[in-house]
């Protein structure tokens, strides 16, 4: 029989000490929607579980017009889409947290957990990258900040050290004229892992794309930022030509594999289709028109 120790620290300090003590044998438990499944399947060898749902810093959701959104790593999806301010300011984040799992899963699953699980197909990650979000990471030794696009390092692997904890995410204040969107493709209309996904953000000024960011899901070993797609937009007139160029760049950057969820060729095609469609919605949300 396999025994597991369970801790539920009430402060960030106690939480960091637990990880300092148990290191690689400890796993953080937020919603548990990935962790418990993996433990039951025997895929993890941890014997310590640290429940982070009582740590205030990991459970706050706070919008500040100066600094943007602070999103505690353990905040579940339903609190995010239930927050009117977040709904108004970050519709692309709402896109993803509304499609992760079903209603019951959304009651537990967190964006921070989705990021730490480091699945290439994670739905929450591309919109975070597109929105320029950063990670606040802490350990007993101190704190550091990591851009979300650098956080995942391989399937199931992330940039956290053995003693480190993801405390929160920071999403910058959306600038005027900006819009963002996340789209994924699944064969059914519910209950599926993304075959491919595209998270995009644009900033429009004077009928042109001032800037753009495009990130893809499920077409590389990690969620993928595609700078070439952003570059294809910058400075171009708002319209279908620039969007097509960005979509083509996204397709060209994708490095998908063939598996039970789709062939590499099909996934590459989806990158183009989803990037185009997501950019069209983002432009609309930014108040632009495609003509």
């Amino acid at each position: 029989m396999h025994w597991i120790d369970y801790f539920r620290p009430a402060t960030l300090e106690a939480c960091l000490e637990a990880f300092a003590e148990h290191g690689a044998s400890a796993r953080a438990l937020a919603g548990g929607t990935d962790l418990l499944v993996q433990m039951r399947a025997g895929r993890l060898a941890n014997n310590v579980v640290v429940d982070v749902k009582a740590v205030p810093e990991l459970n706050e959701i706070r919008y500040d017009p100066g600094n943007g959104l602070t999103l505690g790593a353990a905040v579940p999806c339903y609190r995010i889409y239930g927050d009117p301010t977040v709904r108004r300011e970050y519709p692309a984040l709402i896109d993803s947290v509304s499609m992760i799992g079903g209603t019951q899963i959304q009651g537990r699953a967190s964006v921070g957990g989705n990021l730490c699980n480091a699945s290439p197909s994670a739905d929450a990650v591309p919109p975070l990258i597109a929105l320029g979000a950063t990670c606040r990471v802490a350990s007993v030794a101190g704190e550091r900040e990591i851009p979300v696009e650098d956080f995942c390092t391989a399937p199931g692997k992330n940039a956290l050290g053995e003693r480190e904890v993801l405390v929160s995410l920071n999403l910058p204040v959306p600038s005027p004229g900006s819009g963002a969107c996340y789209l994924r493709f699944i064969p059914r209309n519910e209950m599926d892992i993304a075959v491919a996904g595209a998270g995009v953000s644009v900033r429009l000024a004077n009928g042109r794309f001032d800037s753009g960011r495009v990130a893809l899901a499920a077409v590389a070993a990690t969620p993928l930022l595609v700078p070439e797609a952003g570059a294809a937009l910058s400075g171009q007139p708002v319209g279908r030509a620039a969007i097509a160029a960005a979509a083509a760049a996204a397709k060209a950057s994708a490095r998908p594999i063939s598996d039970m969820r789709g062939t590499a060729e099909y996934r590459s095609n989806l990158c183009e289709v989803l990037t185009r469609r997501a950019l069209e919605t983002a432009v609309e949300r930014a108040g632009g028109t495609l003509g």
Partner: protein
Amino acid sequence: MSTSTLEPKSTSAAPAGKSGNGAPRRDSYEPNMVLATQTFDVVGTRPVRHDGADKVTGRALYGADLALAGTLHGAILRSPHAHARIRSVDTSKAEQMDGVHAVVTADDLPEAEDKLVDVGEGDTRLSYVHGNVLARGKVLYQGHAVAAVAARNQHVALEAANAIVVDYEPLPSYMTAPEAMAADAELLHSDLRMKEFGEQTDKPSNVAEHFHWTAGDVAEGFAGSDVVVERTFDTATVHQGYIEPHNVTALWNHDGRLHIWCSTQGAFVVRDVTSKILEVPVSNIKVTPMEIGGGFGGKIPVYMEPVAALLSRKTGRPVKLVMSREDVFTGTGPTPGSHVRVKVGATADGKIQALEATLAYEAGAYPGSFVAPGGMCVFAAYDCANLSVDCYDVVVNKPSSAAYRAPGATQAAFAAEQVIDEVASKLGLDPVDFRLRNAAKEGTRRADGPKYRRIGCEEVLQAVRDHPHYAAPLAGPNQGRGVAVGFWFNVGLESSCTLNVNTDGTVHLVEGSTDIGGTRTSIAMQAAEVLGIAAEEILPEVVDTDSVGFTSVTGGSRTTFATGWAAHDAAQKIVAEMRARAAKLWSVEADQVQHAKGMYSSNGNSIGFRDLAALSSKTGGPVSATATVKPRGVGGSFAANIVDVEVDPETGKVEILRFTAVQDVGKAVHPSYVEGQMQGGSTQGIGWALNEEYFMGADGTMENSSLLDYRMPTALDLPMIDTCIVEVANPGHPFGVRGVGEANIVPPPAAIANAIHRAVGARMQRLPMSPPAVWAEVAES
């Protein structure tokens, strides 16, 4: 809606009124086409189901709920290889683990005698059943059971199962019929010899059997055709997908009596097959069927029952085994993948001249793929003098296939109905009109020989043609409408039923048919109709094998038909007895007592069923009757679909916009449950069409053995499925009933394929028609 009426409509006798919550009660229905001339009081109404309260409050007891005192929990070790020789099995480490009570392997089973055994819907060799329960010498598929453990709890059992050391010598594996049929393929069974045209040959082969049916002269028929279309189709292995995993608790008592509780479609099959495997008399085995969470044919085979029994005999304790979803996918079912070639020829005036098909189905590890019924059904809807059908039953390294709702017919229809559609299109004919011009009718000879009695193929096609859906405009680009028709049989087999009249005027109905689709109620309604009392006054119960006469499986769309018939016959015996009781009251002869609608009368005296029942003690004691049946007069059923789809050509995703299921049901005893069967079969057909498949890795193992990646449709993937009941009474049944449970799964994949073709021009020759497959086909066309 009502399309046409050939005879006076039946009237519903359900009381009008309101249900408790104030919503209008659905108390009548309008069948679309009624050929039955009889009218009924109970049959054809919609009473609340007898087991409804237990089901909706969660009180119904399923096998996994059972917790006998002292129960040990088991786990089964399954093969990680698709095909391998077992060099050795070392259970010593597992046996020594703390909390482990027993370990069994195939060595604990008696040697299988070489004889045939009835496994529910036909005979198979006992050695195959043995081999599938616990592998001996070889494993033939990933998931093949090799050994089992009974332990203090499930965690210990799982750890112990993983501590069993099996030395495997991997062998080449074959996943499809064409691969296994190749000349250089290694034999799965060294002793398998092909059976051909009904004769045993001495040819060693992975082809277990080759069937061939022919009529007329197909070469001449094709020569005389203006249009000939020939195509080849492949379908993936799919699973029945019942929500409740297999489970069993067995207690082998010290007096030699074995009691089994399990989830099964046939308690007597479990009893009889377990008896043969363990060499225990049937009289020593009692099987209690628990509630069943779906079966669709997949809960006819015996898997874990003999294993749990062996573990119980070794430990002297009850032993419970419950499968995980992965066990269900890799160790049970599925339905065969197929490789089917169809050729159809017709003249310019729309008459089919020749029909030809070759079907090769994957039986899985042991023979028995239901390819023969596929061959019987492939052209069942058509009247053509020149026919040729070849069927090959091929063993491959996948789980031993099991029946799945109209087994074999859906794969066949996917091929035939697409070719038929293409011929109609090439002739410039409406696809429904073309089918109607060639529709099978009474007297048409099916490919395998029999002539149809009264069937409803034409009436179903007429209902499709006249349905408002068929004339409704489509709303946009990339949309298309498809139709298809399919057939499935109805079997009789054997059923028993006992009625016990209570002194308060209610009647306990005792039967042995697992209730999968509301059959407690549809059987009770037939007794109520004869007795002239309300359906609610019959109290049906499905009991264990010691408590009712032999009853065959719930399968072959037979339960409402056959066990309902036994209830009908038992009720007639009760009526005869009640007439005798009334005669005694009034001192007249029984034949002077008339019975109508529950009232017994003679010479101005009359008494109702309830009052007469209350007097039973004074008129001769308890009133009870039993009837057993082995009915003939089976009524096969035709079903058709109209389906509208929209295809996203950029992603290949198919959305079902509108779906209408039409079916000849003979007589809808309980129309709500008939509609439920039609919607359920349609839903499974849609899943089979669009996304479901065993995704096999290069090593022959299943990569998607979870409900996340084995994609059955969810509620969000389906439109409301509209139903259109056609009633062409089966003259062979007292109430005109046909089997309704299965034919509805046959047409959906073909109808959807035809709709996709009309939407985007792609001809889908492979199932599933998943987004990547449709996208690739659209890109090519």
